């Protein structure tokens, strides 16, 4: 017991040192001019405490929704920062991507303790999302964004309809243990991706077996491409990949996606950080707010009945689908949909 405590203390100390060293290494890459430019940009913004308090409240809401749905919350943060707080779009996106990490890593203890986060599954799917993000960043130069917006929009509508369609069946599957009776595919068996958790709302222990690993991996690849190309977090695609294609209970999909979005977002965020485009005075209250909201969200997610989560998730995907359709049509034809 004593040894375990000592090991844990040493692990925490080592981690603290590692974080500090890495921070110094990254910071050393930042030129003095970058920092000066960053501080100059901040002087232009001039955020006062009241403004920061408003940002904090908005971020709490975004973090709460993000944690509930397994998304980053960027769909709330970016439009709010640009329209209500008059931040330039570039700064809003940079602040949003930092907040996505805050949403992802806050309140994790709850999901981990409840056995909702499946780390093996997250790492397996992250291999494709990370590759997708790289491909997406390169595809930007070849494929027109309008086509991608339309493809993702069709996919989002399909996912929304699938979520509503499976609303009643998922509750039945949870209580009847049907998630456990699924036949696992070879990859799922080989990597031991299946798991279990206790569903507080249904009052039952749910065991699940993962199937269609390749289909899930490919949809995650698509999520990564979208993330790299269009600047979308891809959380809703990851949740859908797991729930609709891989037969994973929605709550596990949400918790696992929450873990994954932080890893994906960190890849982009570090570049914003290094290039000095993050408005620190806006990022501080927003990140703190999303962290607080995410802690609140993770606290209640497992207590909500799965059918209500499905309805909320479907509405979110319809909204995202329509936004992407709107952007796609605008870019392709110049026609502005309502």
């Amino acid at each position: 017991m004593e040894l375990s405590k000592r090991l844990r203390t040493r692990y925490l100390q080592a981690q603290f040192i590692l974080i500090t060293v890495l921070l110094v290494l990254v910071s050393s890459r930042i030129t003095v001019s970058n920092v000066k430019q960053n501080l100059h940009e901040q002087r232009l913004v001039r955020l006062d405490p009241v403004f920061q308090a408003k940002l904090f409240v908005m971020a709490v809401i975004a973090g709460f929704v993000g944690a509930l749905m397994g998304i980053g919350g960027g769909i709330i943060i970016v439009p709010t920062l640009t329209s209500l707080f008059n931040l330039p779009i570039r700064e809003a996106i940079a602040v949003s991507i930092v907040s996505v990490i805050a949403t992802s890593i806050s309140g994790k203890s709850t999901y981990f303790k409840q056995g909702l986060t499946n780390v093996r599954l997250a790492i397996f799917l992250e291999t494709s999302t990370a590759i997708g993000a790289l491909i997406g960043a390169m595809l930007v130069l070849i494929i027109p964004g309008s086509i991608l917006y339309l493809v993702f929009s069709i996919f989002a509508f399909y996912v929304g309809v699938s979520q509503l369609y499976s609303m009643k069946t998922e509750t039945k599957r949870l209580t009847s243990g049907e998630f456990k009776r699924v036949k696992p595919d070879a990859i799922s068996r080989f990597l031991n991706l299946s798991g279990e958790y206790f569903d507080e709302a249904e009052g039952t222990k749910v065991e699940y077996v993962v199937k269609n690993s390749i289909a899930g991996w490919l949809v995650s690849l698509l999520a990564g491409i979208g993330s790299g190309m269009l600047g979308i977090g891809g959380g809703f695609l990851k949740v859908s990949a797991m729930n609709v294609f891989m037969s994973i209970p929605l709550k596990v999909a949400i918790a696992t996606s929450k873990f994954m979005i932080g890893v994906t977002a960190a890849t982009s965020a570090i570049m914003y950080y290094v290039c000095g485009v993050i408005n620190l005075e806006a990022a501080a209250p927003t990140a703190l707010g999303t962290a607080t909201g995410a802690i609140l969200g993770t606290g209640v997610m497992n207590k909500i009945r799965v059918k209500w989560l499905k309805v909320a998730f479907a509405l979110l995907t319809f909204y995202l689908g329509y936004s992407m359709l709107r952007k796609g049509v605008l870019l392709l034809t110049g026609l502005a949909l309502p």
Partner: protein
Amino acid sequence: MNVNKVAYLTLVVGMVISTSFLALSLALGALQPKLRQMTSLMAFVGVGVLVITPYIGVLAITVISGKNKDFKLMIMSLAVLTIMLIGLLLGFHFRRVPKG
């Protein structure tokens, strides 16, 4: 060591350190508006720790799964870490800020 526990501990430590710096920066900004540089520095460190935490998380999973001789997970997490680092290096090389 349990991989889930390690991942969780890593993220909690990163979160605590970063939120402490961010909260300190906000408090300092509200109470001592003249210390603008110090406020920015606190926020800079807080955001930096936040951004690096997922990297440390994946690194921790790689190391612990290796120690546990769970080589399947180790290879997968190593692949993720490699891709993340390639992305970072490509970013440095092209000096291009991603869209989001």
